[in-house]
Each structure stands twice: as structure tokens, then as C-alpha cells.
């Protein structure tokens, strides 16, 4: 049981990462691909935060009578990564909107013979 508890978080991270990866390479719709990228990204966040956790620790804000804190460094890295992530997602969605306007579709298998449509 302790073996499972030691690695359970990491296995979920791998599962989420692969779910996101599968959506990115197999989905037909570009918006769904971006959702997949976001799931992939969240799995990396989950990995970092899991590594920062200390059993019996508490949130890294100084308080009376607390001696054990979780690691603040992964929190800092991921906090900024989330905001940067939504900004880059917005750029991706803007590209999707432009593709829709130029090609009339956002389905991957409908682009085939429309190379010079703009």
C-alpha cells in the first residue's frame, strides 16, 4: 500500500500527460487539440506541485508554531506558468480563429485540397 501511495501522484500525472498527448495527436478539431495541450500542461503543473509537497508540512506562509513547510519554489514556478499558459492559449485560439476565416474550417481532414485558399 505504501508503494502505491508513494507513486500514485506520479502515475496520475503520466496518465493525464498521455491523455493530453493523445488528444493533441488524434483529435480532428483544432479547438479540441488546444484543450489537449492544456491538459498536458496541467499534468506538468501537477508533477511540480507533487514534488514540492512535504508530508506533515503546511502552506509556505509563516505562522506561529509551525516548523515544517512545503517547498515554496515549485509554487512560484507554476504560479507564473499558469498565467503565461493562458496567454499562450489565447494566441493559439486566435490562430484557430484566423484559420477558420481563411479556410472556412477547423477540422484537420478538411484542409487537404484548400492549400491556396486565403
Amino acid at each position: 500500500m505504501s508503494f502505491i501511495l508513494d507513486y500514485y501522484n506520479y502515475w496520475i500525472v503520466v496518465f493525464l500527460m498521455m491523455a493530453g498527448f493523445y488528444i493533441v495527436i488524434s483529435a480532428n478539431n483544432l479547438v479540441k487539440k488546444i484543450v489537449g495541450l492544456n491538459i498536458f500542461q496541467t499534468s506538468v503543473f501537477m508533477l511540480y506541485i507533487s514534488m514540492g509537497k512535504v508530508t506533515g508540512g503546511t502552506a509556505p506562509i509563516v505562522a506561529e508554531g509551525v516548523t515544517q513547510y512545503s517547498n515554496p519554489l515549485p509554487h512560484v514556478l507554476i504560479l507564473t506558468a499558469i498565467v503565461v499558459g493562458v496567454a499562450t492559449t489565447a494566441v493559439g485560439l486566435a490562430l484557430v480563429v484566423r484559420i477558420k476565416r481563411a479556410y472556412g474550417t477547423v477540422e484537420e481532414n478538411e484542409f487537404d485540397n484548400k492549400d491556396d485558399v486565403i
Partner: protein
Amino acid sequence: MAEFIDLVLLAMLAMLALTALRIIFLKDLFAVVMLFGIYSFLSALIFLNLDAVDVAFTEASVGAGISTVLMLVTLAMTGRKEKQSTHSSLLPLFVVLVTGAALIYGTLDMPPFGHPDNPVHQHVAPRYIEESPKEVGLPNMVTSVLASYRGFDTLGETVVVFSAVIGVLSLLGVRRKKKKDLESGLETHRVLHVVAKNIIPLVILFALYVQFHGDFGPGGGFQAGVIAAAAFILYALVLGLPKAFAVVGPRFLQWMAAAGVLLYASVGLYSMYKGGQFLDYNQLAADPIAGQHYGIIIIELGVGITVFAVMLNIFYAFGSQAERSNVQ
């Protein structure tokens, strides 16, 4: 009690995995986006459970607020059904299974979860935990590391957010509408009007609290900027874009986004002028701790202004595109 919290964490991680699994097979993109909002809220709860309160705060406001709205606006332009793929899904499945198996094999070499002796807790973290309350003088270590120890890194991230809005605006652009009589917003929904008008001031007040209380509790410029932008997005959704433009125009937001980044960088330049290094807040006042406090408050304000302006302007760009395509 500890076992109960462990069980809650295990259950929430399993729910997260199930949500991701459901997203794979759904063809209705509206449902996909809604499930992704649930996914974000679940991850925020898990972050909270893993002691990352600041991260949970950010994920709840960004993931469940802004990115869901942006995806819905995109769907309004691209359609809500995914069409059946003509490719076989066997090859992607094979690639994913092989990669996943290799990664699972890799996790067995990871140090066990939650152990205080793990390598990640040995290098710089003890210094941040033990010294930052004395060196920076703030109870929230995340804010100390974000704004002071790794201030240069955070400046870089603010610049990335700023360049994202440049990217979105050059791709889409914000158009002011010419036809005045065009229907915009949810004019006929009186209940929404009343509720929104009552909620919006409270949300903005909360954003200000998060902005200026970030030194002592969870919060800071990133979260406050996103929350304030969410309040204005609600206003624009309920009352329509033209009325939101009258409150804060897109042109003004472009200036604001740049002003936030410049405010941040100018703190660095000022500390160089005072004889220190770039972003060395100790130089800002006679007492180093007071200097740290001034520096952190100002750069958090710069971050908050930039994030607010960028998020709102991105929404304006998407929103005005959606209204334009509705007209056509």
C-alpha cells in the same frame, strides 16, 4: 485525520483522470470546454490539498474563469461539433501507450512522494524557508521568492504575457463597431443585469484586496489582475462590448499593459541608479527590509496592471471578432 486527507487527495486525482478520459471521447465541443472548466476547478482543489495555496488561487481564477470564456468565444466562431476523423486512431494510441509505459517506468526512479529528505527539498528551498522571513520580511514565502529572489524571472514572465497580447492583437485586432443598433450583450435578461451589477463592485474590491494582501496571505499581482479582468469580462458579457469599451477602451488597455511592464523594469533601473544591481530592492530605502517592501509592492502592482490589461484586451479581441462574424 491525515489518512482521511490522503483519501480525499487520492479520490480527487482519480476524478481528474476520469474527467480527462471523458474529454477524449466527447465530440460535442461545448461539453468539452465545460468539462475542462471542471477539470481546472478539480486541479485547483488538488493544489490546495498539496499546500500550494497561491497556485490553487491562480488556477481557479485563470483555468475556470478566463480560459473557459476564451474557448467558448472561439467555439461561437468555429462551431460546436467535432467531425469524425478519417485517420485511424490506432497509431496515436500505440505511440501514447509506449510513451506512457516508458514514463511509468521512469517514475519508479523518482523519490517517494512527500518525503522531507527528497533531493528537491535540499538545495535552495531551506534557504528560502529559513532566511526569507528575515531577509525580505514577509510571511508569504511564495511572494518573497516570486518578487524578490526570482524577480528577474518574474519580469521575464510579465514580458511574455505582454507579448502574448501583441500576438493576439496582430492576429485579430479590436474593432469598434460602426452600427449602433446592433444587438450586443444580454439586454433582455433583467435578472442577470441586477445580479451582475451587484457582484461586479465586490469582485473588483476583492481583486484589490488580493493585490495588496499578497505579501501576507495567498495572492499577488497575477491573481489580482486576472480577477479584476474577470469582473470587466462579466460586465462586457452582460451589457455588451460597446458599453465595456466606454468604461475601459482597448486603446487605453494597450497603454496600461505597456505601463505595467515599464513600471516593473523601472524599479530595476532605479535600484541600479541607487548603486545596487538590477532589481536589488535593498537599495530602495535606507533600511533594507523597508526597501524590499517598497520594491515588492511596486513590482506586484506592475504585474497586476499588465495581467489585467492583457487578459481584458485579449477578451475584447475575441469578443469583437465573434460579434463581427455574427453580423456576417
